[in-house]
């Protein structure tokens, strides 16, 4: 990846001293890291390493015990999660978060509604004014390969397709930074291929920070990897560097990495 700027100006997101204590347990412990613009940054680590907690701290779904978060040069540590989302830093969830009783199209439309239509307190208008958003929703569904099921109830989709729908819904907000929490978990091989391609395409104009367990995907997809273990950073670098790091091999992989290739 490009390492043209070293002055920090091309970092989208920076966390400094990020710490979260749950009843005496330091789930995230003094984590510093930065996400460079237009890269795919992976956050990996064994179960319980604090990856998802980290995500929730960065998007303010949890309040950090200490530390600061800077997004696009602005301190966002004290902002509400909804405000952070509106600034273009949008997260997905580990457990698939679709609106089950709505149609696939309506799921995406609900996100478009917020971005295009505004806060939508207009309870006196007909919902018909939202139908204009459906062309764009269709286009997004086409991008993730869901156009042919757009009228299905979201709850009826197979798991992997729900994840794809989530990505489409997230993209509808036109975010600058996507935080994807295990976007490939539970997907079949075909879906993994398609979604990997999608993430790659998305990252050409945006920045992606993701938690992922599938190491072969991490290897091919990510420009930068941060390894967390027990809430602290164990190693950082590209896949080649990280996978050779003896501390990582011991703590996370437990055996030589090439077993996983």
């Amino acid at each position: 990846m490009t390492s043209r700027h070293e002055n920090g100006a091309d970092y989208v997101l920076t966390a400094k001293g990020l710490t979260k204590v749950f009843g005496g347990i330091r789930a995230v412990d003094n984590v510093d890291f930065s996400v460079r613009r237009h890269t795919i940054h992976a956050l990996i680590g064994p179960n319980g390493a604090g990856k998802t907690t980290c995500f929730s701290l960065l998007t303010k779904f949890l309040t950090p015990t200490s530390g600061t978060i800077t997004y696009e040069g602005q301190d966002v540590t004290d902002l509400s999660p909804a405000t952070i989302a509106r600034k273009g830093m949008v997260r997905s969830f580990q457990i698939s978060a679709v609106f089950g009783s709505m149609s696939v199209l309506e799921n995406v439309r609900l996100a478009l509604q917020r971005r295009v239509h505004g806060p939508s307190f207009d309870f006196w208008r007909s919902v018909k004014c939202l139908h204009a958003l459906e062309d764009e929703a269709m286009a997004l569904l086409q991008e993730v390969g869901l156009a042919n099921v757009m009228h299905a109830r979201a709850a009826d989709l197979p798991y992997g397709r729900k994840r794809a729908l989530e990505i489409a819904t997230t993209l509808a907000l036109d975010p600058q930074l996507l935080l994807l929490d295990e976007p490939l978990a539970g997907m079949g091989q075909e879906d993994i291929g398609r979604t990997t391609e999608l993430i790659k395409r998305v990252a050409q104009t945006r920045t992606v920070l993701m938690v992922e367990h599938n190491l072969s995907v991490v290897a091919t997809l990510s420009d930068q990897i941060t390894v967390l273990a027990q809430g602290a950073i164990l190693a950082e670098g590209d896949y080649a560097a990280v996978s050779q790091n003896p501390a990582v091999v011991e703590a996370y992989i437990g055996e030589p990495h090439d077993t996983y290739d």
Partner: protein
Amino acid sequence: MSHHIEPTTPTQLQGKTGGRRRTARHHMFVFALIAALVVIAPQFLYPVFVMKFLCFALFAMAFNLMLGFGGLLSFGHAAFFGGAAYATGHAAKVWGWPPELAIGFAVLVAAVMGAVFGFLAIKSRGIYFAMITLAFAQMVYFYALQSPITGGEDGLQSIPRNSLFGLVDLSSDRVFYWLVAAIFMAGIFFVYRVIHSPFGEVLKGIRENEQRMISLGYQVQRYKLVTFIISAALSGLAGGTKALVFHLASLVDVHWTMSGEVVLMTLIGGLGSIFGPIVGAGVVVAMQNYLADLGSLVLIIQGMVFIVCVLVFREGIVGVLAKWLKTRL
């Protein structure tokens, strides 16, 4: 609202817009049916009884907006219903206001109460939210019990209806019925519009997955508060109208059992269904009226109906009906 996209899946596109039209057609039919019933009802039934039913139906719809569509279980809606009844009574009796102003004033009072209670309660969830709303409603009850303005144990009696716009004398129940019918129809149309508005879409999203809505940038608390205020205002419309129907605003209207009754109506009719609360209100009001001779047995029968309802058909009467007809009602 037709789409001009390269029709990759033209049949499904048609299917959807067709489905929307089908549902909309059903709703128009139900609206027409309700309007027809409201028009002919006083020919067969005692107008005051029908008016009582219409007021409670409106109250239940207001409540359903919060519980069924906003996912907020309030156990203090009697405060808005009864508070509005007192407000209307005071405006009509002491200030001599015409009904349109007296009821309008009541709606305003209920909305302001809703804004204050809602602002303080909305931060809590589930049972805590229910308990806080109950606590506020009890405060209103004890205020009504002791304040000289509300007439204490006697309530406000002989509230005059005055004349509509200072022109139409409403003292006859047959004449006043049409005003109540108009308020009711306007009320259900309003609820229908709220549910089928961009705001209503956001509410559905919050009900389904609040966390995801936050991550999409929606400020969930504000939508809940607005829902609370709308629901309180509509409850006020129902309560204010009721005070003029019976010429009476009393402690019954602000008592916690009133809050319980509206939960009962909504659940029997169908939680989260648009027309369900109307049916639920009909069942409860009819039971109270026709079984009145049985005295306190009515409460036991009500309780049993409620238990059967929760055990056998959780979606409520209209919910089950909608399932059979494969539509949304």
